[in-house]
């Protein structure tokens, strides 16, 4: 890493100040190096988590792929993430339209309300859903998880698609109407294409957020329906073998694919531009 930085220094990415440069290198080491160790240990032939790994093999990948709880949890997490993301977009896009194009009082308040799930700690929301919906109302854990994840993703759906909509000229929809499009047709042929980058960003972000979530899902697990991150977390606590490293490496590889898709469609950095503020 330091080599990359110092080499880059020759090409105008100058580490202007030795202190700043050292801090930057330290930052990247802390962010990236632990991930590299996960990958390295997942290829071990030995049966303990150690570095350097004992030989090279793919046996832990085979074991992870054959370990039923992981496979089932993976399927569950994928189902949950796809459904929650779809639902959040389906509910969130109309809200965005109402906020940006409608004539209603108190828009800021309304937007704040829809962003509020970001403010309350997820663990607290998870506790509330567990206690009130699962125990209180006897709702099954899949429905509760879906409700909770959808509420958690709503802020992304509203804010990220809102950012695209704010960039679009409102006269575009008027132009479509003037050219003979009904309100619905104007939405489908003009507004929706304008929203496309926002929809992709919110979709990717929502999917990843739901798939990776621990705090909200933590209390909402049952034997029938468990999510992958929580299952992996539990496994680490029980046994200390490199199978979780292999599972982690698989998740990492899948995440790289998602990142590449993000880069190809809307631009990687842009996706995160919409989250803050």
């Amino acid at each position, binding site marked *: 890493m330091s080599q990359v930085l110092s080499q880059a220094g020759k090409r105008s990415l100058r580490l*202007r100040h030795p202190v700043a440069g050292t801090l*930057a290198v330290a930052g990247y080491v802390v962010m990236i190096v632990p991930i590299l160790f996960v990958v390295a240990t997942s290829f071990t032939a030995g049966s303990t*988590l150690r570095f350097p790994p004992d030989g090279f093999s793919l046996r832990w990948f085979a074991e992870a792929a054959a370990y039923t709880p992981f496979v089932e949890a993976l399927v569950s997490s994928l189902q949950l993430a796809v459904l929650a993301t779809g639902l959040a977009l389906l509910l969130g896009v109309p809200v965005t339209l109402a906020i940006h194009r409608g004539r209603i009082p108190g828009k800021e308040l*309304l937007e704040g309300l829809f962003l509020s799930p970001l403010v309350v700690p997820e663990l*607290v*929301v998870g506790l509330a859903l567990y206690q009130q919906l699962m125990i*209180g109302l006897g709702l099954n854990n899949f429905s509760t998880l879906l409700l909770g994840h959808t509420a958690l993703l709503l802020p992304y759906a509203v804010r990220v698609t809102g950012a695209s909509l704010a960039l679009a000229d409102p006269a575009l929809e008027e132009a479509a109407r003037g050219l003979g499009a009904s309100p619905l047709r104007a939405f489908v042929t003009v507004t929706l294409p304008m929203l496309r980058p926002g929809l992709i960003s919110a979709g990717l972000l929502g999917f990843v957020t739901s798939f990776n979530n621990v705090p909200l899902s933590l209390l909402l697990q049952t034997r029938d329906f468990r999510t992958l991150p929580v299952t992996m977390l539990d496994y680490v606590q029980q046994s200390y073998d490199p199978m979780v490293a292999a599972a982690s490496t698989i998740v990492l590889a899948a995440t790289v694919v998602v990142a590449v898709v993000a880069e190809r469609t809307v631009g990687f950095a842009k996706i995160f531009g919409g989250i803050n503020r």
Partner: protein
Amino acid sequence: MRARSTSLLLLPGLAFLLVGFLLPAAAMLFAPPGVTFLQVLERMGAMLTDPYDLGIMWRTVRIGLVVTALCVVLGFPIASLLARSQSRWAGVLLALAIFPLLLSNVVRTFGWLVILGSNGVIGQILTGLGVVDDAPQLLYTEVAIVLGLVQLFLPLAIITCYSAVAQVDPGLDEAARGLGASRTRAFWTVLVPLSLPGIVVAATLVFAGSVTAYTTPYLLGGSSQRMLSTQLFSYASVTVDWAAASATAIVMTVLVFLVSGLSSLVGRKGATS
């Protein structure tokens, strides 16, 4: 768009928000099953005087502050470096800083077990060099939690500071240099003050994330280094003490709200002065 069709667009989303978030959250804080709000308050009162509970709160806040400070100190230089650079490496490094945000916290935190664990890298290096005979216990310490949280939240600090720095006109740096400021002085007298609102936002996000994170204290802190989040989980799931769980949830939420409120106050003051 007419008012009626607008409300039709809003209604489904609002209903979901209400059922999936607002109502349960309110009910949990004020009326957990079989417990009155008064009992929750009593339990909270007891916590605020109990040394063990107070210790957990103080540890949570302490770790939050240290992580926040580290993330700003490491993140801001990286952000300003990336935002000001024309090099093609800057794009690669920015992507490298953003990528971890997409990656599961469990995966990211797991790496520290390999590094800090009993057969871990650091232990082996230390024993291998003969510095110590037995590898020291590095896991289940506050240092481990801090390291894990810095790894987790540094990307957030970087992209928040990045957008703040990117909004500062690079011409201002040059103007300061032209007026006789060294690079370092231009950095401190122009870039830092103008990016301050962004730094405050970054600090708030990192702090709020750190004091509510679960995966990191669970994996790297264990039961010896409890934080509010791991304690909350144990009340809700192990001892099933609703009053204590709600009380802890209130403390955690208030802590986050307090810091967010404080930061938006600072932000507003900064904007007017």
